[in-house]
């Protein structure tokens, strides 16, 4: 399953790296890519719970998931 999240407050390459790092550590996440220009994080996952955990991880780092 793939899901693209709209994420606010990303502003540089480090934001992409940080979110990619924290999300890729979550069980069930198979692939992550972030794009600060588009304000998106695309997640591929094989466990339904991984998506919610990813959103929480993004919020925990100070970003806002808006969709």
């Amino acid at each position: 399953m793939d899901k693209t999240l709209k994420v606010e407050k990303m502003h540089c390459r480090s934001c992409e790296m940080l979110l990619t790092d924290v999300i890729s550590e979550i069980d069930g996440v198979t692939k992550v890519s972030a794009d600060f220009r588009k304000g998106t994080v695309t997640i591929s996952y094989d466990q339904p719970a991984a998506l919610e955990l990813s959103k929480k991880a993004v919020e925990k780092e100070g970003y806002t998931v808006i969709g």
Partner: protein
Amino acid sequence: METTVSDGKKEYGLRLTGMTCATCEKVISRVAEQSGACVKDVDSRNGTLKLVCDEKSLDPIKRKLAERGFKERREGELADSGRGDPDRVKDYIFSLLAGEPHVEVEAKLTNYAVASSAILIGLGIFSYGSLFKGFGSSSTTTALLLLVIASAVMTVFSYLHMSCYRKSVSCMHGMMIGMTIGMMGGFMTGALTGATNGMFIGSVVGMAFGIALGLGVGRFSGVMGAMEGVMAGLMSGTMGAMLSVMMINDNLMIFLYILTGVCAVIFGGLSYMMYREAGSAPNPEYSGDFKKFFAASALLSAMLLAIMMYGPKGPIPLR
């Protein structure tokens, strides 16, 4: 630099390139800690990392950091090696034009500025014959009207953009914000009112606008920014009026065009500086909506035009 700590572990001090913000610090800390190091300090301002680890782990950590763009810095090399790179500015402008999310506030305010300018110019054309009299030829009147609108819109843009950084800027950034807006606002209003009303009114009005603007934005970072803004407003308000009066018979209108153009570049530079130094606007809610932008621009334009036309000495017909 290295210091032996215990169990064969040593404290190392690394100087890295590419660190620009707090997120870079987080990324670097994670890389080091996942490799078994203990991070003592990471500082993006100085581009330094202090960590404790064994000697064997150091090179893999350096390699992983380099893969992420944080290479070990040579003597004399800047921490943020991209500083001064014109491509960064180009990148920012293209992002702004494309309305990318990381410059959402700037893109929104740019749209508001364009729309407000168009409406105000339209209103100016509509009321041209009845309201705007005494400035000299019709081309001079048109030019002054455009310069007033441009000055007002630029000032409102910059004020609202800097409002989005309130309480999240350092004293140094706050002083820069207060100084830039106080100085540009005072200079433009002082020059325009000085050109049409003479030295006294121009100086008083320039000072009043400059001080109010400088104080208004400088206070976001505390008393240092506020003081800097007030002083910049004081200086530029009088200077703008003085230069206009001195140039009254010497291509004053051309000077006003140049002044407004330079102010536009400086306001743009301030917005870029804050984006680069403090990241995307952290409090976008303070940028307001279109109504607020337009109302502030219209009010500022109307106040300036009223003083220029109905001030005690005005308007002095310009060539």
